[in-house]
């Protein structure tokens, strides 16, 4: 399915904004000559038992990141009695109107995707107690009119979907440290925000754990676990900057790179393919499946189960079992996990594979603390 | 070779620039085409040279109709043209400029200039042009650059040479030389079409005259016709060419400039140590060839030049460092040299242009609030007083003709209470009728006791208007002479030469 917006709008960079916009115009006009290039989001208007609706953020449905994952999860639940649809936003100002539209359409459940959409979802949940809501990457609590009341009050019709991705990233860090020949590995993020840095922190701590266990000195570039700061692109759409960061890491000797920047991982993987100096660990989804063009350099992927959790919420609603209790994706409930090594399996020593597997078991059991 | 036009017609939208024009230029004659600006002279010549295509009519060379669809065709037919603005590349040599577009290379692909140089030397010697093919064009005086253009036309075998306002850029001496050269060319068989609006030159050089007015041929006067007759034909009504000026005793000093230097941003000194006074009731004309520092001197007086030293005193007040706004309000009317660029805002209405420097004063504005009705009402009064021909004062200034534009500038500047009028090239590009009006206005300002400072490159204008004449050369005032000084002596001074008895 080809959609026009291939440029995730999540970048807050300004010219980025215009460029993207003009690219959009350009792409759209170019495509208009081909007219058939445009397809619409599938939907079934017929009234059915359950109507699950997604309110996406500005990344759009093809952001190759969590918007796409959420929509994938929702689509997987579509049956004769479950219809799914989404509304994408053009800017932050669209969130509230979009959610209102979904409420007016009498959606059975409205799932907000993205942290910025949180306030609008919370407001809507309070105003429409009869509608069920869920929010990805947030706790789903009401933190008061000034947003400063913590822990806040739970709402009976709003479910937070969160992910302990530091668990799987911890494994990835351990794996990277064991896999590295140069003794240097690296990570970078899109923005310095919790849903991103939780991966980077887990990764860096995984490397540190490897050093502790093995008595090695593998260096993790790009994230300082003490200062809570590191290397960031400053958005999710600047391919050139992501590529530059990847090249810098390679020049510093890193041979495993873990980009936590949605679709920008492609820039790093592309550099891995052309430079033959590094391998890439994909983020959010299994890159081997979602970005197969890079499969020859993907060591593994740190999967965040946005799709499965969204699908889970919709299935619960369909079964009449919706609960507002927050969801936390962990290794234990497969809400996050380390994907298969796929084509690179034979390059990963069997012993290392076993250690990583055992590490996962130890994290689940609480024997190894990841944070 | 003879050139004949039959009923050539060319229109631009509703405007008919050339209306059934017939013209016959015989073998070896200088044929002057006389007309005011906008009469259609240049359009006609652009048609002949192939730069414009006529809507109707025929062009015949030696009795045979030819089709000219571009300058290349014109050249092939033996028609050459020297434009008012030269088409030369300043950093190239004379030879390089002449071969441009017709370059020949030797077997190594290197530019072959020796033949061209030979040709240039031959033509130059034949007509006594004194042009060195190896000199850089930018180092040559304007008059010589014009000869380069003429040589180029001759080398490409032009038998009919069109000269478009050729004297506009020349000093009086250079003008005389050009007229002499035109006669030499004619005597050797080249026909010349000489476009001009200067009556003296026509009388001096032309064998035949065609007068064009509003796109039509209005007459073929004999070369013996008087200047008044020619001017009347051109304008379409009787014109007084001699400016009547009553004698008046100048009053006290109004403007006193001492040791003034003006530098440009790169530090070049354009005005050098200039000192002079202008008295009330006196017209001081600063004569000089374009580019000798007059423009900068005029601008410096009104505060438009940034890097100046020396002193400028108006009516006892030192205004040297004042802003333009303050200078104008201290009592200077300023008519800038380039009215299109500096004098008017063409997209503004005529009414707005009439208050360009008084818009924030009563009655036009009270505090920050402007009154469009008063602006329009006052504009009506001004345009009547200054005889500006227009449809509505709300039309844009761009819709006016050159003469009417200058009238708007004058109406604006002379309606303020001023002590000094500074006018740069006040009649440049204007037709005879408008020149007459502008001159009369300037004289009446002087008669009412104002000090007037005129900058002009036109000798006629200088001698007609001035009570005293300052001659500028290379940034200096090299002579301060009486208004009765002869044209010849003034011409020499403008070229930097002190004739006997004029050294001041």
């Amino acid at each position, binding site marked *: 399915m080809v959609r026009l917006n291939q440029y995730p709008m999540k970048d807050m*960079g300004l010219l980025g904004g215009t460029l993207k916009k003009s690219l959009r115009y350009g792409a759209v*006009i170019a495509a208009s000559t081909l007219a058939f290039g445009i397809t619409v989001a599938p939907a079934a208007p017929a009234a059915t038992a359950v109507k699950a609706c997604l309110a996406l953020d500005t990344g759009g449905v093809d952001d190759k990141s969590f918007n796409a994952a959420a929509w994938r999860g929702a689509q997987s639940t579509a049956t004769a009695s479950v219809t799914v649809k989404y*509304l994408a936003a053009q800017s932050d100002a669209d969130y509230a109107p979009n959610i209102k*539209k979904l409420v007016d359409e009498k959606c059975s459940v409205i799932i907000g995707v993205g942290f910025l959409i949180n306030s609008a979802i919370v407001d809507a949940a309070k105003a429409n107690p009869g509608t069920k809501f869920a929010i990805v990457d947030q706790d789903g609590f009401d933190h008061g009119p000034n947003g400063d009341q913590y822990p806040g009050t739970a709402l009976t019709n709003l479910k937070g979907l969160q992910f302990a991705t530091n668990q799987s990233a911890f494994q990835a860090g351990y794996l990277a440290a064991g896999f590295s020949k140069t003794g240097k590995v690296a990570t970078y993020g899109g*923005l310095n925000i919790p849903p991103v840095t939780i991966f980077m922190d887990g990764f860096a701590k995984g490397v540190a754990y490897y050093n502790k266990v093995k008595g090695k000195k593998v260096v993790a570039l790009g994230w300082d676990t003490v200062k809570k700061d590191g290397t960031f692109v400053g958005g999710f759409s600047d391919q050139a900057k992501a590529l530059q960061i990847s090249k810098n890491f390679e020049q510093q000797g890193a041979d495993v790179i873990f980009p936590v920047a949605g679709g920008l991982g492609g820039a790093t993987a592309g550099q891995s393919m052309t430079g033959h100096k590094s391998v890439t660990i994909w983020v959010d989804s299994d890159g081997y499946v979602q970005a197969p063009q890079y499969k020859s350099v993907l060591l593994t992927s740190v999967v965040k189960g946005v799709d499965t959790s969204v699908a889970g919420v919709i299935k619960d609603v369909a079964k009449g079992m919706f609960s507002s209790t927050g969801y936390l994706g962990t290794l234990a409930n497969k809400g996050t996990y380390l994907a298969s090594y796929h084509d690179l399996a034979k390059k990963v020593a069997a012993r290392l594979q076993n250690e990583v597997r055992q590490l996962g078991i130890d994290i689940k059991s609480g024997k190894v603390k990841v944070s | 070779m003879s050139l004949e036009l039959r009923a050539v017609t060319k229109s631009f939208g509703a405007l008919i620039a050339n209306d059934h024009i017939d013209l016959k230029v015989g073998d070896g004659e200088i044929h002057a085409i006389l007309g005011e600006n906008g009469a259609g002279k240049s359009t006609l010549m652009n048609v002949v040279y192939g730069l414009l295509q006529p809507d109707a009519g025929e062009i015949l060379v030696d009795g045979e109709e030819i089709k000219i669809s571009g300058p290349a065709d014109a050249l092939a037919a033996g028609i050459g043209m020297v434009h008012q603005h030269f088409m030369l590349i300043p950093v190239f040599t004379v030879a390089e400029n002449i071969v441009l577009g017709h370059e020949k290379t030797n077997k190594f692909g290197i530019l072959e200039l020796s033949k061209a140089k030979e040709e240039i030397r031959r033509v130059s010697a034949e007509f006594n042009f004194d042009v060195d093919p190896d000199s850089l064009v930018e180092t040559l005086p304007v008059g010589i650059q014009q000869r380069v253009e003429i040589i180029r036309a001759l080398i490409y075998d032009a038998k009919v040479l069109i000269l478009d306002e050729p004297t506009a850029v020349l000093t009086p001496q250079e003008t005389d030389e050009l007229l002499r050269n035109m006669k030499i060319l004619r005597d050797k068989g080249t026909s010349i079409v000489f476009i001009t609006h200067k009556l003296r030159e026509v009388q001096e050089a032309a064998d035949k005259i065609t007068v064009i007015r509003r796109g039509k041929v209005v007459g073929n006067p004999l070369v013996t016709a008087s200047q008044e007759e020619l001017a009347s034909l051109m304008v379409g009504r009787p014109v007084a060419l001699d400016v009547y000026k009553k004698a008046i005793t100048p009053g006290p000093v109004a403007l006193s400039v001492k040791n003034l230097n003006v530098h440009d941003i790169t530090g070049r000194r354009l005005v050098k140590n200039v000192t002079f006074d202008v008295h009330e009731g006196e017209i001081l004309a600063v004569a000089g060839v374009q580019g000798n520092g007059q423009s900068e001197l005029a601008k410096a007086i009104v505060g438009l030049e940034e890097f100046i030293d020396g002193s400028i005193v108006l009516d006892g007040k030192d205004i040297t460092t004042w*802003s333009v706004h303050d200078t104008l309000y201290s009592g200077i009317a300023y008519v800038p040299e380039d009215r299109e660029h*500096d004098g008017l805002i063409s997209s503004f209405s005529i009414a707005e242009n009439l208050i*360009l420097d008084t*818009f924030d004063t009563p009655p036009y504005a009270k505090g920050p*609030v402007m009154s469009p009705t008063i602006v329009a009402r006052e504009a009506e009064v001004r345009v009547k007083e200054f005889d500006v021909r227009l449809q509505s004062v709300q039309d844009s200034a761009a819709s006016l003709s050159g003469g009417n534009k200058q009238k708007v500038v004058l109406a604006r500047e002379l309606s303020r209470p001023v002590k000094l009028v500074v006018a740069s090239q006040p009649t440049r590009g204007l037709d005879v009728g408008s020149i007459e009006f502008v001159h009369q206005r300037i004289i009446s300002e002087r008669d009412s006791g104002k000090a007037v400072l005129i900058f002009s490159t036109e000798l006629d204008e200088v001698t007609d208007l001035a009570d005293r004449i300052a001659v500028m050369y290379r940034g200096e005032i090299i002579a301060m002479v009486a208004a009765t000084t002869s044209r010849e002596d003034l011409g020499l001074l403008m070229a930097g030469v002190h004739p006997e008895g004029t050294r001041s």
Partner: protein
Amino acid sequence: MKFFRKAVSTIALPGLAFLSALFVSGLLIAFSDPKVLKLAHSPFKFIGGAFAAAGKAYLALFEGAIFDPNLAHPNFFDGFYPLSETLVAASPLILTGLSVALAFRAGLFNIGAQGQFIFGAIGASVVGFKTTMPVGIHVIAAIVTAMVFAGLWGGFVGLLKAKTGAHEVIVTIMLNYVASYFLLWLLSTTPFLRKGRQDPIAPPVKESARLPHLAGPNLRVNLGIIIALAAAAGVWWLLNRSTWGFRFRAVGANAAAARTAGISVPLVTTLVMAIAGALAGLGGAVQILGSEYALTAGAGGTFGFDAITVALLGRANPIGTVFAALLFGGLRAGGLTMQANTDTPIDLILVIQALVVLFIAAPALVKAVFRIKQLKVGSGVVSKGWNG
């Protein structure tokens, strides 16, 4: 009669351009609908289907921009919710559009409305959530702060140009980057973090600093639209009836002549950029205090860039700018509904916007399409603007 003819010639061209854009977009809507494409085997059904699809989409556009009968019961007034949304979307656009238009008239190309908008949003947000003031005073203080922040930000560009000749296009583009990354950084600092969160979202502004709703709590339309319209009237007065406007326009139309007439070009440049900045900043304030209530990294949206289109579409005239902004606001609000009701991709709204601009920017095209000879094209502000 003359007035009527003038009005027709002013509206006719943009109107026809809009119709042309709708027509071409209708084709795109039809061709992008898989249900329509399935009818391709039968030309009649295909054309019918295409009309139905485009009609449905445009009905949704109308329902999303002006009036939605589905929302009109039980309370008829609620049917105007879409109009309210249009006005909410248009308010900041009017203000940023005015910012660009004003600068345009003074011969300056203000690409920096984006950065100025951001600084206005920052100023309004800081006063809105950090300080405590009585109702009324608080909102005024927030607005004034926004205008001062953005005015200084814009005026700085004017000062640079006046003093050093730095071209405002380059400077404003660069300052847009500075503003957006400054905002990003600011949102990562402690005062701007909501308690317990590390997301780039500032605490919401207090109730006392919010612009009051104009039509009850259900409709989001707020005082912002009144502020925007008042600003448009103010800019119109400034440009056409004040001595400062005369100076601005004179410098814009011919800086050399303005200078010769004694107008200080550097002063005008600085002042115009400061006022333009303040207008864009007012837009940021209206956005934060009127509808968003919290500063986010994406708070700037594309208001500053859309403003350029809006100002061009409005021919750099304050009244034209208001209408262009309302059109864009309507397309924006209606586009969300079009997406929701008919599954038309939201990007198609961008296409319609682009097509409207394309058709208006190329009057020759519209004239050719409709075989108009005499229609007078408005003054050529559109084609100029790069003159320093």
